[in-house]
């Protein structure tokens, strides 16, 4: 408590710098975890668009990654889910057209 600003120092109207939600990691809410199988992925980006927490990172990859049917996908590709923010809602599993994502109970 003591390292946080008191009411006299806080900016009024709860005004914060942009992107402050990045500091609030919601991955701890997760019960089910998306398990991603890169060998089935076509990098269609449907999971990326549907993810409500923007928890699926997309990177530029010129050398390419191996995906469905052993094919190499170049350019924009998805990588492993960011578990700092994934709440485990399972939307990606439902939307994935190739069955590359399976929700599994997360054991601690």
């Amino acid at each position, binding site marked *: 408590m003591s390292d946080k600003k008191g009411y006299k120092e806080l900016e009024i*109207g*709860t005004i*914060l710098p942009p*992107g402050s939600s990045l500091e609030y990691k919601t991955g701890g809410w997760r019960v089910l975890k998306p398990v991603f199988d890169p060998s089935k992925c076509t990098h269609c980006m449907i999971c990326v668009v549907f993810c409500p927490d923007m928890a699926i990172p997309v990177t530029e990859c010129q050398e390419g990654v191996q995906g469905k049917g052993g094919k190499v996908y170049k350019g924009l590709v998805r990588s492993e889910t960011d578990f700092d923010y994934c709440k485990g809602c399972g939307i990606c599993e439902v939307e994935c057209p190739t069955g590359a994502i399976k929700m599994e109970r997360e054991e601690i």
Partner: protein
Amino acid sequence: MSTLKPITGAQAAAEAMRQINPDVVIAYPITPQTPIVEHFAEFVANGLVDTETIPVESEHSAMSAAVGASAAGARAMCATSSQGLALMWEIVAATPGLRLPIVMPLVNRALSAPLNIHCDHSDVMGVLTIGWIQIFCENAQEVYEHMLLALRLAEDERVLLPVMVNQDGFITSHAVEPVRIYDDGIVKKFIGERKPKRYLLDVDNPFTVGPVALPDFYFEIKKQQEDATYSAKSVYLEIGKELSKITDRSYPYFEEYKTSDAEAIVVALNSTAGTVKDVVDEMRDEGKKVGMIKPILFRPFPYAEMREALKNALSIGVFDRSIAFGAYAPLYSEIRNALYDLQKKPAIQSYIYGLGGRDIFKSEIRIAFNELLEGKLDSNLQRYLGLRG
């Protein structure tokens, strides 16, 4: 310098809005507020203001859009009554926490059920705890002037809170009175432009509005809001003095009418105060020492000043135009609270009157004054004026 116009209380609010020239006005029609936005829409259609009006599908959307516009940096206004206020409650409650200076005329109307379009104060009394500054107006002239004062008060950097400007439905909003409207140039100079320090459309300095604040921050933010509400008390007087230079009228926390030697004082809000003053005049002619107090700034409530004004009275009658079911009536509670710190307390009586627009007559106010003068009072039981037994 000024012109006298025969207009209603609703038109008086619209006239003030014309001179304020807000960037955005979003409101949904609801009786008896509708003529405010109707008259204002005329000003927009005739090109007298630069305002963008946004038609929306409900009051919830109206206040949501006003919040968005205000956060973006615009001067945004809204207007409503009763059920409309009830529907927009969620956003009305968020506005003070977001520290957005939205001014909203509220035309007081009874809350359903039973459905009723006429005046009482059950709408505003239901939102007193959420942090809007509340100003009450006796007549159309006060509506006009208090709207101007409210705008400056809301936008003052020491306050930054939304303000509701209350007037009685139909009694004030639809009755034509002569209203002195001050010159556009002078009023516009008084009003000035809204210059927020931070606003969403300032794309070079992005920031977040309305984030989550969990147990580690919510408490501090609410304390800030409370401090701002209290600082509105002195800022109100300061801006009132500035406005006095234009209008030559004063802007106290409450009006005191023949109270200096009064034995019995009635406290009443809005239009009823005018009728009470008539009764005070009549009874004074008969040699009775009676007086009246009309609260104007209701949130923040001026407890110490009210205590000082009431301390020499023998008995006080408080008129409420709404019931706080299962509790003391809203205005009565404030007055009773204000008196607590007095060693020698006046006797006090709660009166409920005028629910759902039932008229209050001079004869009924006289009954109350006579009871106060006779001193047969019960501070724990409320009495009713004009209720069939």
